[in-house]
């Protein structure tokens, strides 16, 4: 119990600190207790942040939402289709394909960023929306999870029945199988969303145009200027606070799905 309490504190204190720091004015930030409130300037700080440089922070938040939202949605769809196909269809090379995908889980995204940069340079796609969006559509872990889940939760008999009723393969997948695989798909979506939202290295290498930045890269760029432009420190703090809110909301909304999805994948 004590151990759990300690760990809970360990995880929560930084967020608490961030919240408290976000409410302070810059002069009180250094001079007051870091874990307790001084004057509440939260609204003022947010207003300043949003106004700074014509609201570039909002652009970053929208970019992140677009990269992570649309990217995770498509990645989930592709991973779900692949996993389903690997689980339910027998074809030559199936295991080989699956093993290659599994190998992909082991390759860190950071290691791929530079080769990706060189490839995207060849086709003149660096510093575009696509440079960050396209690579995030790939989720080897998603394929792995949905395959396990599809094998366990979509009965072959049900697919047979759908076929007998005259449904095509695609229709069967979207009307029958997707519903059965829903917990796994939500889990994949959530993982991928978080991964893209927090992805930093790929945008750092690919993007030059500030209006394309996701919020992680934007805040990092500001943070690297703090020595020279000290007021940026306040913006980075309040920006970091705002940037974790979408993740928290998403987790709260989807938690009943992903809990069952995560459990199912591991036991069966």
């Amino acid at each position: 119990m004590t151990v759990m309490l300690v760990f809970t504190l360990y995880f929560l204190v930084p967020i608490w600190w961030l919240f408290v720091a976000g409410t302070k004015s810059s002069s009180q930030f250094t001079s007051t207790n870091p874990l307790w409130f001084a004057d509440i300037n939260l609204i003022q700080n947010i207003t300043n942040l949003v106004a700074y440089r014509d609201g570039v922070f909002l652009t970053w938040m929208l970019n992140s939402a677009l990269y992570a939202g649309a990217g995770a949605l498509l990645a989930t769809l592709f991973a779900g289709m692949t996993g389903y196909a690997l689980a339910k269809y027998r074809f030559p090379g199936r295991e080989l394909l699956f093993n290659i995908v599994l190998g992909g889980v082991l390759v860190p995204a950071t290691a791929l960023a530079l080769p990706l940069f060189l490839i995207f340079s060849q086709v003149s796609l660096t510093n575009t929306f696509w440079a960050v969006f396209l690579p995030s559509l790939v989720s080897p872990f998603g394929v792995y999870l949905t395959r396990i889940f599809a094998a366990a939760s979509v009965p072959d008999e049900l697919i047979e029945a759908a076929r007998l009723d005259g449904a095509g393969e695609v229709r069967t997948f979207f009307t029958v199988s997707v519903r059965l695989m829903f917990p796994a798909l939500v889990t994949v979506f959530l993982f991928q969303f978080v991964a893209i939202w927090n992805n930093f290295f790929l945008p750092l290498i690919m993007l030059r145009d500030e209006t394309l930045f996701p919020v992680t890269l934007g805040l990092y760029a500001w943070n690297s200027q703090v020595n020279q432009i000290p007021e940026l420190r306040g913006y980075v703090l309040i920006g970091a606070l705002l940037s974790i809110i979408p993740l928290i909301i998403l987790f709260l909304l989807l938690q009943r799905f992903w809990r069952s999805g995560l459990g199912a994948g591991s036991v069966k």
Partner: protein
Amino acid sequence: MRITKRAATVALLTAATVALSGCSTTASTTDTAGDCAPADGTVNLTFTSWIPGIEDVVDVWNEANPGIQVAVQTGPNGNGGTYANFFNQLEAGNAPDLGQIEYDALPNFRVQDGLVNLASCDGVMDAQTDFVDWTWGQVSFNEDDAVYAIPQDAGPMAMFYRADLFAANNIAIPTTWAEFATAAEQVRATGSYITNFSQSDINQFAGLVWQAGGTWFGNDGNDWSVNLTDDTSIRVADYWQDLIDRDLVSTQPPWTTEWDNAYNTGAAWTWNSAAWGANSIASGAPDTAGNWAVAPSPQWVAGDAASGNWGGSSTAVFTGSEHPYEAAKFALWLNTSSESLTLLNESANLYPAAKSGLELPVLKEGVEFYGDQAIYDVFATASSQVSPDFVWGPTMTQTYNDVSDGFKAAVSGNGTLAEALASGQTATIDALKAQSIPVKE
């Protein structure tokens, strides 16, 4: 944030090394010094810089020069990732036309053949007299007929100090490092520290060595030499080691809340820093407004007038740019026109490298935070006293990291600053050899 930053740096360095190992064989199309002619029609240039608000400055140029349109690209500061990106882009052949590069990183780009020699471009050689002498040395590497970038800003060093506390405790403002050590004892007796020794800003330490007359690197045209452990550097290291050993200086990690707080609460009284540091103190220690002043850095020999430098950057034109003529023209305007320099000072506190910039009205005024002292006069004088001989090496990021690891160990009682320099010396020579850069031992 700090850990992410470090991890990112490591990852980027790895990435850059991968890119560079492929680069060395292909870089043969550089040094086109003889060929810098204007193009026909409208020229579009790309310019990567991490200065906040530089778009506004470039807008002014674009307005006035419809024939040369510049598009700004941005990112984190150089060592935060933009340098690694530059190397990647050079490798991929899509580097921007112009890029911001700090002086200490220029040699790295030079040895990788990433920079265009602008010497034959219209007006570039004539501009030498427009810049503070030592800044020109930083971009020409003291080679003949060579200019690899246009100086942008500089960080001449002076001593920020708490005028009120020194006066109230009847302690004289130190003018030599010997007096500084004595004052350190007196300040310590009041319960405070005279200054904070920065365990990770090796750049600041280099500035102190620079002031003392040392130089860490040399290049005779063929071979590089590394002198991190020459007598001057060791003397400076031993001086600070002694203050650390006697607990006369604090050793908080720089740029942190605790560090700000030490200055804000009067726990630290002086800071030997660059011109741009004026703003760091003002925003980090807001409660002490009006109590600070600036004096020249303490000297090693009484009566001398030597200054060091900390930071500063330049605007370079990258290999592969099709329009070096127009790029050089823009870079000269950016770094010499009073309009541009004023804007850069307003938006990013840049302290100009151009002589005319030192005379900007905004840099002649009294600064409220410093009790209305015209502090930039002190820095202007300091700028003229910086030795032009100091040379940076081609692997500075690695050198900084190695020395900084040693410094961090030294302030926590493991080893000494001098030992940190010695291991930095060895590691730097190894790094140069590993990159096939000729080095003399």
